[in-house]
Each structure stands twice: as structure tokens, then as C-alpha cells.
């Protein structure tokens, strides 16, 4: 009987030490399947999680949207992204009940409203998904990105002063898309120039912005008989969250407990459980850029228009102290509750039971690792002016001078005076899914040239 009890206690202890599975643990296999290029498996795993964990449905739908986009189904991706955008906007308001409950459990009971960078990028991805279907609403989404950025920056300034603005590097993709769409009208060159000016100041590393600005100010969209091809590449593996132990805070809590005990508060419950917080992990990006070939000839390399990894890192560094502070406040609230109960009961046996209960209570906490884990590290773009007609586009990922040929090939149609868009998802060394475009072309019949 005693052996059975010991075994049960061992199991219980192992369970508590391991903690509960976090979102990061649950989505890991789906992420790996996506980066391997196994979209069916990724989709199936996300669907399974969607059925199992309703509370994570928003972030899971974001992952599903990325899978749909890579599969060449931008319409479905757009629908999913739109749903989550609206829900995040709703959850952005704080709910006092959830906040209070989170002090007794952990932050996972709070409805997830997305990190600031995620709320901006949902709109950016909506714009890209819409462009791949013709771009009727792409301008609206691009404007929404800029509005959301403005809103976030204003609330950050109110919260933490003018310095907070430094952590919020705006997404240059939004004004870039605005400029691209304005230029295509052959009329709104002033809008295009204004937009490219924003791009040049927000993303100075994006050298093509100077050419774009020059063209919008003094040039034209394209020469007669030509159209423009924009290749958007989602490269690298984006940031995600993992549970980590906040060592400094854990040690501080233990020391604080010892000091309080030494000053006479003998009923202070012991601090054993580590303080767990979500840490942002930014995997190294092996893809430097993407080489674009047209009809077998290399025509250029993509350039970074938005560095998602850097943006997430900067913004997360800004909110991280608040996340740690919440975890510590939670511990203090729990300790205070147990301490008050021990004072009220004043019974050594009951006190021991309460201490054990408090330890168990602390161990059940998990870090809130919900995030949009299938984001790319960078969004890159290349603009090419090409003669109207059908062209074969091939992509190759460039890893610091070494190119891998798995970037995908597609036939696209270039229309006179209009834009054609191609979207590629290259998280590692090769294309995931297929090249997505708004104007599919067909290979020329025998005897015809590819124009």
C-alpha cells in the first residue's frame, strides 16, 4: 500500500515538475511539418489542435491561414485572417474577470489579443493574400496596417513615454504596397512618391526604395508594351515563444521569503516552484535573399522590406518586464492568500497541508506561449519590368553565396501597363507549397517564343 502511495506521489511530482504542456509544445510538430514542406501533415495537426484546444483557436487559425497561403489558396487564407483580426480587435479590451482569474491561475486564461507586431502583420498578410486574388481590397488592408501602427504607437507613448516609439519600427511593407497600387493607376504618382518616401525612411536598408521614389517622382510605371512583376518572398523561420524559467525572479522570491521568515513571518509558505515566463525565440535566418530568374536568366535578388524577426524582438523587449512583473504579482497574491488562511486556521497540520497546496498551485502555472508561430523572419520583394506576355519565373534561395534550386517555378502572365504578383514561402532552403500568383500563365506551344 505504501509502495503504491510512493509511486503515485512520484508520478504526481514528475507531473508538477514537468508542468502543463504549453501552446509551444502543442504546435511544435505542426511547425516542423510546415518548414519541411509537408503541408498536409501541418494542416492535419493544426486541425487536431483546433478540435482539442478551443481556447487557442485564434492563433491556430493564423497558422492555418499561413498553410492555406502556401498551398495556393489565398482566398481561404484571407477569410481566416479576417476572422482573427476582428477577434483580436475585440480581445484587445481588458476583461476584469479574466485579469482577476489570471492572478489565481496563469495568463493562459486571458483571451489572446495578439502581440502588437502580430496585430500589424495580420493586416499586412491580408494585403498580400488579397493581392494574389487581384488586389481589390489590398489598398484597404495596407491603409489598415498604417492605422494599426499609428494606434499602437500612440498607446505605447501614453504607456511608456516618447522613448517607447523607438521600439516600434513601422512595417514598411504597408506604404510600399500603397505605392505599388497607386503607381499602377498611372495617375496617382504623387501618392506613390509619398508612400515610397515612407518606405525609404522606415526601412533604409531597402535600397530599391530610392529607385522607386525616383520613378514615382519623375518616371512612369513601365514602358509601353511592358508590365511589372513583383516577387514577394516570405523567407526564414519567424519568431515564436517558448517557456523559460526567469532565474533572477525565482531567486529573488526565494530570498524574499527567507527574509520575511527571518523577520518573524514564520507562516510564510515556501517558494519552490520556478517563475515561468514566455521567451521570444528568434531562429537564425539562413536565407539571405531569393534569386529570381525569368525565362532561365537571372534578373535580380529580393531585398528585405520588413524584418519581422527584428520587429518582434524589439517590441517584445519593450513588454517583457511587464510579463515578468505579472508573474511575480501572481506569486505574491497566492502567497498572501495562503498566508492569510494559515493565520486564520492556526493549526500546524492544516498549515502543512496549505503549504503543500501552495506548492502544487505554483507548479501548475505555465507560461503563455501563444503566438503566430508560422510567420516568416523577413518579407522580401523584387520589382522587375518585363515585356507583356507569358514568362517562366524560377526562384532560388541564396544562403550567403550558395543558392539552392528548390525555390519553385511558375508560368505567369505579364499584362501591358499592369502589375503581376508572385508570392513564395521559403522558410529554409526550399519553397514550401507552391508559387502563388494573381496571373497564371501557360507554357507556350511548340514553335512559339515565351513572350
Amino acid at each position, binding site marked *: 500500500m505504501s509502495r503504491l502511495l510512493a509511486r503515485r506521489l512520484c508520478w504526481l511530482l514528475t507531473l508538477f515538475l514537468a508542468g502543463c504542456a504549453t501552446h509551444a509544445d502543442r504546435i511544435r510538430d505542426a511547425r516542423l511539418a510546415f518548414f519541411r514542406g509537408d503541408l498536409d501533415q501541418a494542416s492535419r495537426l493544426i486541425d487536431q489542435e483546433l478540435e482539442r484546444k478551443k481556447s487557442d483557436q485564434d492563433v491556430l487559425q493564423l497558422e492555418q491561414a499561413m498553410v492555406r497561403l502556401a498551398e495556393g489558396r489565398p482566398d481561404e487564407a484571407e477569410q481566416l485572417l479576417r476572422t482573427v483580426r476582428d477577434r483580436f480587435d475585440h480581445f484587445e*479590451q481588458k476583461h476584469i474577470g479574466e485579469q482577476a482569474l489570471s492572478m489565481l491561475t496563469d495568463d493562459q486564461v486571458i483571451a489572446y489579443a495578439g502581440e502588437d507586431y502580430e496585430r500589424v502583420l495580420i493586416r499586412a498578410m491580408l494585403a498580400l493574400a488579397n493581392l494574389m486574388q487581384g488586389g481589390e481590397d489590398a489598398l484597404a488592408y495596407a491603409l489598415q496596417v498604417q*492605422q494599426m501602427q499609428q494606434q499602437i504607437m500612440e498607446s505605447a507613448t501614453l504607456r511608456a513615454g516618447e522613448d517607447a516609439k523607438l521600439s516600434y519600427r513601422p512595417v514598411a511593407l504597408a506604404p510600399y504596397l500603397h505605392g505599388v497600387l497607386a503607381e499602377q*493607376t498611372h495617375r*496617382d504618382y504623387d*501618392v506613390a512618391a509619398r508612400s515610397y518616401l515612407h518606405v525609404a525612411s522606415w526601412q533604409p536598408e531597402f535600397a530599391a526604395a530610392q529607385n522607386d521614389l525616383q520613378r514615382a517622382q519623375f518616371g512612369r*510605371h513601365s514602358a509601353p508594351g511592358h508590365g511589372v512583376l513583383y516577387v514577394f518572398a516570405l523567407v526564414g523561420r519567424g519568431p515564436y515563444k517558448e517557456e523559460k524559467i526567469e532565474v533572477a525572479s525565482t531567486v529573488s522570491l526565494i530570498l524574499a521569503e527567507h527574509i520575511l521568515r527571518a523577520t518573524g513571518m514564520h507562516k510564510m509558505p515556501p517558494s519552490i516552484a520556478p517563475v515561468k515566463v514566455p521567451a521570444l525565440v528568434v531562429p537564425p535566418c539562413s536565407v539571405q535573399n531569393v534569386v529570381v530568374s525569368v525565362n532561365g536568366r537571372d534578373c535580380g535578388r529580393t531585398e528585405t522590406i520588413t524584418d519581422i524577426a527584428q520587429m518582434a524582438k524589439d517590441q517584445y523587449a519593450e513588454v517583457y518586464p511587464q510579463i515578468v512583473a505579472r508573474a511575480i504579482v501572481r506569486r505574491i497574491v497566492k502567497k498572501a492568500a495562503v498566508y492569510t488562511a494559515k493565520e486564520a486556521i492556526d493549526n500546524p497540520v492544516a498549515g502543512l497541508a496549505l503549504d503543500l497546496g501552495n506548492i502544487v498551485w505554483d507548479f501548475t502555472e505555465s507560461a503563455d506561449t501563444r503566438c503566430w508561430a508560422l510567420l516568416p523572419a523577413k518579407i522580401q520583394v523584387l520589382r522587375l519590368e518585363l515585356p507583356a506576355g507569358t514568362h517562366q519565373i524560377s526562384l532560388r534561395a541564396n544562403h550567403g553565396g550558395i543558392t539552392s534550386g528548390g525555390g519553385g517555378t511558375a508560368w505567369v502572365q505579364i499584362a501591358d*501597363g499592369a502589375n503581376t504578383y508572385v508570392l513564395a514561402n521559403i522558410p529554409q532552403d526550399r519553397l514550401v507549397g507552391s508559387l502563388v500568383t494573381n496571373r497564371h500563365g501557360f507554357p507556350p506551344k511548340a514553335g512559339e517564343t515565351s513572350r
Partner: protein
Amino acid sequence: MDRRHFLRMSGAFCMAGVALSGCRTKQHAQVLRDDQADLVGNKAAGAETFGPLVEEAVAKLLGRHHSGLQTVSAPSQPLVVCFLGVENKSSEELGDFREQLYQLIDTKIEQSNLYRPVSRRYVDAALRETRMRPDQLFVPENMGLFMATLGRYGQPINCLMYATITSGTTHEDNAYQRDYLLTMEIVNVHTGDYDKESAKIRKGYERSRLPGPIAKSGFFSWW
């Protein structure tokens, strides 16, 4: 007893207040009647600025119609106008207002019966075909090519029309005033004669710790 009842009620109201302030609100909307005022943008110009600007500028231009341009068309015929769009030279983004301004102006011109605007689809097609920028159309060869293209579409024109939004900002401590000017310019493509009219709206922006409605009332402006 009364005091206890009062305290109980106060407590209930306080609890309800805390609960309501801590709940997520739902977004609501209503259709504004014509007699209801537009919302006033507190960071940039909005419907309250652009609506009256368009009304006034277009009305002034149409009012001067007969005294202004010499045209090649018969006096009873409306002038065929190619409206090239709204150029933004102000310090603010027009955002989604740009298209609306275009449509508002275009509709008002069309309804005047004094001018007949060419459909935007023809204008866009001609710009695309000729690869001309709107600002290049005043070079005679470019103008000739553009008019010939529109003529080929069966849309010969008499005038080109431009709208331009500009702004001027004056700062004073925590407040600033921004003047918005909408200028409508019409150029006879045959003679080069031009006419223009403007409408101006001034707006004051101020940072205040007072709640919006009280700050707007100006009651504590001396404070």
C-alpha cells in the same frame, strides 16, 4: 435604516460600475441622419473638413462657369471635362478619402449639367496607353497625344480639371491650427485659358487633459 439602504445601494452601484468598466464592450454603429453633424477628426481632417471643402469649391467653380472659359464647343453644349484626380500636397495622408473626394467632385460636376466629365475608365485607359503622367500633359506633344487617344475612344475633351489639397500649419504651445485648402483648376486644352477656385477650412487641434466634450465646449479654455 435609510442610511443602510443608501450604503447598500451605493455599494451595488460601485460594484456594477467596476464590473461594467472591466467587461469588453461591443462595437455598435448607427446610420447618421442628414441633420446630424459629422464627427470631428481630432488628429487629422475628416468628413467634417472635406465635405464642406468640396461643396464650396465646386459650387464656386460652377458659379463662374459662364464668365470664365472660352470654349470651342457651342454655347449651349456642356464642356467636356477630363478630371485627372485629386493631388495631395498637404501634410496629412488622405487615406481612404482620396477616392471619395474624386467621386464626390466627379458626381457634382456631372450633376451640374454645365460640364460633362469623361468617365474615369477612359481617362485611366488613355493614361495607361500613352504612359503619360498627369503632370506631363501640359507639354504640347503630350497633350496632343493624350487628346488623340481620348478622341479615338470617342471622348474628345475641351478641358482638363485638377483638384489639389494643400495645408498650412501654425503652432502655438500645445495647440496648432491647420488650414486646409481645396483648389479646383480647369484648363482649356484648345486655348490654354484657365480658371480656378478655392475653398478653405481652418481647424484647431489642442492637447487637453479634460474630457473631449468639456474641452470642446471651450468653457475651461481660460484655464
